[in-house]
């Protein structure tokens, strides 16, 4: 196990380095510079020169690349160019908890409701519940989250006045963004669980469990679900990524002060330190998620763990 973790850790570092390099190249290949317009004011040439030397943008690219790598390695991204009063770390520290809360709750809601929906659909195969669940799932997959978000605002906030339309100030503010963000992954999970559950339920070991006189509840939760969860865990990494990117849009629509806002704004304004910081942060987060998925594999299916140790 330790060997596996170490190997994966090295691979993670390598992946991050590749991402950092690509980001750097892309970042500098977009035309324009952070000083094209500074808060609406046009700067004098001398001022731009000063600024450029301050942020090392006048250096040749290879030198800039090395400075860039160094700041990533030491987690010192420095202050934002656009809002010099705050460092990138400040922005991340303020935005991340909000985004994390939104993302994690969405993921939890998506997994729990998706699994529940899928299991019931499988148990009532070709019954009413099955048809309802699968209809919900098809809608969930087909409707993009920004459409769902605007529909929710229109109906629940504007028309019925049940929930607040935006910002992030407590539980009632979280409901709509979480629904908007969780619906699509929930639908994907429900369909996956349904089909894998249907397959698992025909397996011999389920009949063995029945022959022991176990209750249907115990058979489903202990014997079937653990096996049926494997394909879900496989897509969990990708789903986490899609929820993560989904937060950009959803945060924008619901005016949630999360990281997504800074991420999008920083690219538009070529705020190099912020682009660097948010990209690296998101990448690291995603890689850690994928790593956790691999660990979960081993827990769900003991055969997989041994194979990786052996290699």
């Amino acid at each position, binding site marked *: 196990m330790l060997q596996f973790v170490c190997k994966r850790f090295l691979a993670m570092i390598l992946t991050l380095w590749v991402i950092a390099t690509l980001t750097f190249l892309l970042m500098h290949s977009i035309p324009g510079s952070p000083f094209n317009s500074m808060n609406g004011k046009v700067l004098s040439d001398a001022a731009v020169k000063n600024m450029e030397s301050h942020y090392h943008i006048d250096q040749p690219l290879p030198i800039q690349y090395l400075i860039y790598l160094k700041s990533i390695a030491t987690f010192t991204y420095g202050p934002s160019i656009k809002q010099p009063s705050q460092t990138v770390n400040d922005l991340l520290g303020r935005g991340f908890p909000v985004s994390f809360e939104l993302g994690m709750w969405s993921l939890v809601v998506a997994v729990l409701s998706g699994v529940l929906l899928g299991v019931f659909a499988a148990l009532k195969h070709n019954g009413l519940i099955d048809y309802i669940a699968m209809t919900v799932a098809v809608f969930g997959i087909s409707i993009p989250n920004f459409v769902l978000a605007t529909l929710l605002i229109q109906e629940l906030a504007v028309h019925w006045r049940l929930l607040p339309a935006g910002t992030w100030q407590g539980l009632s503010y979280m409901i709509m963004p979480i629904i908007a963000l969780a619906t699509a992954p929930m639908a994907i999970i429900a369909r996956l669980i349904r089909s894998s559950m249907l397959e698992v339920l025909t397996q*011999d070991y389920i009949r063995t469990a029945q022959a022991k006189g176990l209750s249907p509840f115990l058979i489903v939760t202990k014997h079937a679900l653990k096996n049926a969860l494997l394909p879900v865990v496989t897509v969990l990494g990708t789903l986490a990524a899609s929820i993560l990117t989904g937060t950009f849009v959803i945060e924008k629509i619901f005016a949630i002060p999360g990281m997504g806002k800074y991420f999008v704004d920083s690219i538009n304004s070529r705020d190099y330190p912020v682009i660097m910081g948010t990209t690296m942060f998101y990448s690291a987060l995603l890689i850690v998620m994928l790593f956790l998925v691999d660990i979960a594999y081993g827990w769900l299916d003991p055969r997989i763990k041994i194979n990786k140790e052996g290699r």
Partner: protein
Amino acid sequence: MAKQSDKLLEVNNLHVSFKTHGGEVHAVRGVAFDIKQGETLAIVGESGCGKSVTSLAVMGLLPKPNGKIIDGSIRFKGTEMTTLTPKKMRRIQGVNVSMIFQDPMTALNPTLTIGSQLTEGIIHQKKVSRKEAHQKAIEMLHMVGLSNGEQRMKQYPYQFSGGMRQRIVIAMALICEPDLIIADEPTTALDVTIQAQILELFDHIQEETGVSMIMITHDLGVVAKTADRVAVMYAGKIVEMGSKRDIFYRAKHPYTQALLNAIVRVDIPADTLKPIEGAPPDLFAPPDGCAFCERCPFAMEVCQHVQPPTSMVDENHAVDCWLLDKRADTIRQKVEIL
């Protein structure tokens, strides 16, 4: 009526049918047998003759909602099982009647430890503590010939060979000390050497616990080794039933005789196998008369139209065949001369 007490299981006129896309398959058509305490009944027949379905019906494990008992009774220790609620049926499954399945490679859950799978039945059914269940499971592993129980309990199915897994499955079936074990082709998926060991194990278990068994198999070698009595099934019916000696030495039904003839023997030189020509009838539309008559070398006019009645050769030896009818005597003589 006084005799009822020594019968552990009585099956009468059992009919089972399956709904499929092609229509309704009448898989078991009026099966009757009984088992006494400590006895082993072998049910023999070719694939699709209804032997497994019969056993699943007794276990209450017919696949829902397609499989259904449409007629007949299954009485276990005097309790009618066909009308029990699923909840009451579960109190019997694994506790009074347990089952050993054909393929040990798939009968165990790959994601749970052996220990967890061994103990869950007894914990759930008999409400014993985890510790007691653990002890009992190790005892059972020892009984089926697996040493190092403590360590085995923590292992997963993929860490065992096929023969060992079948031993574990057997231990699992035994843990609640059932009165009856139904073994559905327990050796079919195993090597011949392992087969012998497992059959030996059944003998040993029966000696030790006095459990009754239904041995479902198509292997007459297994029958010879384990059975007290034998029921030969064909197309959803028992066509001949008797003691092991009755079946092996005094078989009356042409199907039983053909089965025995089809055994390959090394001590008798033969260039070709002697299969039973033809195929079993389509159970979507069961024939009016004897189901075997299409393939029977002795078939008579009556066989095609009327189901043969059960004739008793002696007290324990029953045969469903028109050849045993008094009126058929002369015909049988003729055929035998040919």
